[in-house]
């Protein structure tokens, strides 16, 4: 399949004008597959961390959402052990008017504001709800342990 213009254009913009704290670089041999890095946002438990993600644009993108997953371990109520992300725009709230950049910005925002009421990782969410300070501490530890170079 030829690479749709839209993907080429998005890639060009991502490389030329990356969003702050976010980088997304396509694989040379598969331009639908991106290595993504998101820096932990300031004033979040993930501050100072550098998180690796993978992003894949399926055949019917942008009619279908990109597939995104954390590769770096992260202690977050909306991200599970497999790195899968609970984010509505990656599922039923996807719209073809959204793009890679907006998706990655949303994920960055999710790091700033974990939402334990809509959990993917139940044990983490439980922890977050019962003892938020303690959960944040764990998240900080994990960030130091797994997300620092």
């Amino acid at each position: 399949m030829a690479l749709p213009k839209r993907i080429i254009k998005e890639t060009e913009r991502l490389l030329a004008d990356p969003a702050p704290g976010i980088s997304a670089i396509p694989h040379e041999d598969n331009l639908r597959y991106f290595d993504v890095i998101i820096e932990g946002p300031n004033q979040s438990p993930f501050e100072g961390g550098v998180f690796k993600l993978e992003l894949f644009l399926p055949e019917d993108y942008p009619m279908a959402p990109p597939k995104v997953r954390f590769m770096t371990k992260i202690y977050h109520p909306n991200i599970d052990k497999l790195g899968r992300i609970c984010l509505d725009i990656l599922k039923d709230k996807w719209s073809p008017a959204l793009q890679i950049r907006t998706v990655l910005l949303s994920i960055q925002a999710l790091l700033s504001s974990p939402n334990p009421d809509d959990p993917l990782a139940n044990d983490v969410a439980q922890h977050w709800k019962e003892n938020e300070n303690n959960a944040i501490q764990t998240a900080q530890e994990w960030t130091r342990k797994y997300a620092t170079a």
Partner: protein
Amino acid sequence: MDFDITDPSDWPKEFGPLREIDSHLRCPICKEYLRAAMMLQCHHNFCSECIRRHLDKESTCPACRVSTSTSQLRRNVSLEEIANNFGDVRQLLLKTVRESLEPKSAPAQTLECAESMDIDDFTPQQKRRRISARVGKALLSAQRGRTHESDDNDHDDDFTMHSQESSSGRKYSTRSSTRPVLRSRGGRSETTPTEQVPNPQSASSSQTSSYSLSEEHTSASEQASPTPAKESTFKHTLVACPVCTMAIPEANTNSHLDKYCFSGKQDPIYNVALSVVETYSPQAIATYEKDGSSKSVSLPASPQRNTLRSAFSSSPVRFNGFAQQPSKLGAQSGAAPIPEPKRLPKLTYSVLNDKQLRKKLQELGLPTHGDKQLMQRRHAEYLTLYNANCDSTRPQTIAQLHKAMDNWERTYMRDLNAKDAQRRAQEEQQQKYAQELAQQKQQEDAASTDVTNLPSSQSSNSGTTGTGFVPNQANNNDVNVAIASQAAQAHKLKNADNYNDLIADIRRRQQREKDAKAKAALEANDAASAPIQPPPQEEL
């Protein structure tokens, strides 16, 4: 033309409002200029084709998520015309805008500028320079591959920005001392307006063709009854003269321009606007479009503006220059409401049997082979293309739609085959993996005494954290085998759909392996007596 990758950011920041205009004229789905703009009741606009595809799957506005449906779609003709015209003038405008920002230069340098005007095809150099060379190259060949086969091997050079400020090790062009120059393949400027003019050789061949539409036809829109048809001879395709917008045979463009338009005179032979010609009988245009030779066709003298659209009669007249049928716009505004062309109805495929569906396809002139699923998809695809075409002020011919369907057919079959191959490969892979695991197990059993300590260090690794990305069931050797075989498999499946899943797996496993190794190394340091972990086994 397809080749262009344009973006609002192409406009210099000094011209911010142009960026705004550019982005407002783009479809939020495909990010191209709106093609047959359609507005939903929430007032968001999309290409007809894009929004129809989306609404086939989901009944919401992609921009604001308000619920909606195809019945809510309304054409936004003015917006479409603006998008069309802005697209037509874009390249010229961009060039002008960029030149206006350049410092005044000596005449010698002006020449340089003209020579390197291909720069318009590309994004600003600041942008390009930051793209890593390798990815940039891959991207460029991808966009290039859309319309042009790479015909040489040094195509990266063709698109390389040579700039004084560039700190890369590339050779710089020394042609210009004041600004970066995009060195492009000699004189390739396929999108500059002048190139649109047909070459002079063909001009002489059709000098004799006559064109005898009289003045009355230009105001004939009110005439209801057909008057005796005028005989008219067409040669080749009619285009709008880029200067005076009259309809002229494409092959005569140069002589017409030289003799009349450039000297400010009116051409006595060609004095009918293209928009008027377009509104004549579709058959007439189809006839000359078909055989393209001088042949008499009769033009019924009751042009109805919408015959063009409703029958998709033709646009052999797609002049790609900047003076695209301005009179057409004028003709449409202030005219009676345009009757909506007839769109194809949706079918309820579940109540149709194969035979009925085949008949429907046949009626539309579409291929009738394949199983019901294929026929259904084919029909749905054609419906989208056809109905979107009904919405366009620059509609394609039926022949062009069928050509698009041919492409779709090919792509569909290719994808089908690829998915088949992928499924087979996956099955093979699973078998192979199972075999290798069994083999490995045997080897381990044979040499079990050497590795007795390993599993414990492993289980402590996964046991204490309990958060490995995958359940830790296999020992390191299993993991290595899995990585190797999966890597090999993934390599074969590069273009397969779930390549990403495979890669994700491999990465997770590699990460896990790294963790395990680090842990083992630590423990080896702590207790010097512990056995040293065997090096990872490279199977492939």
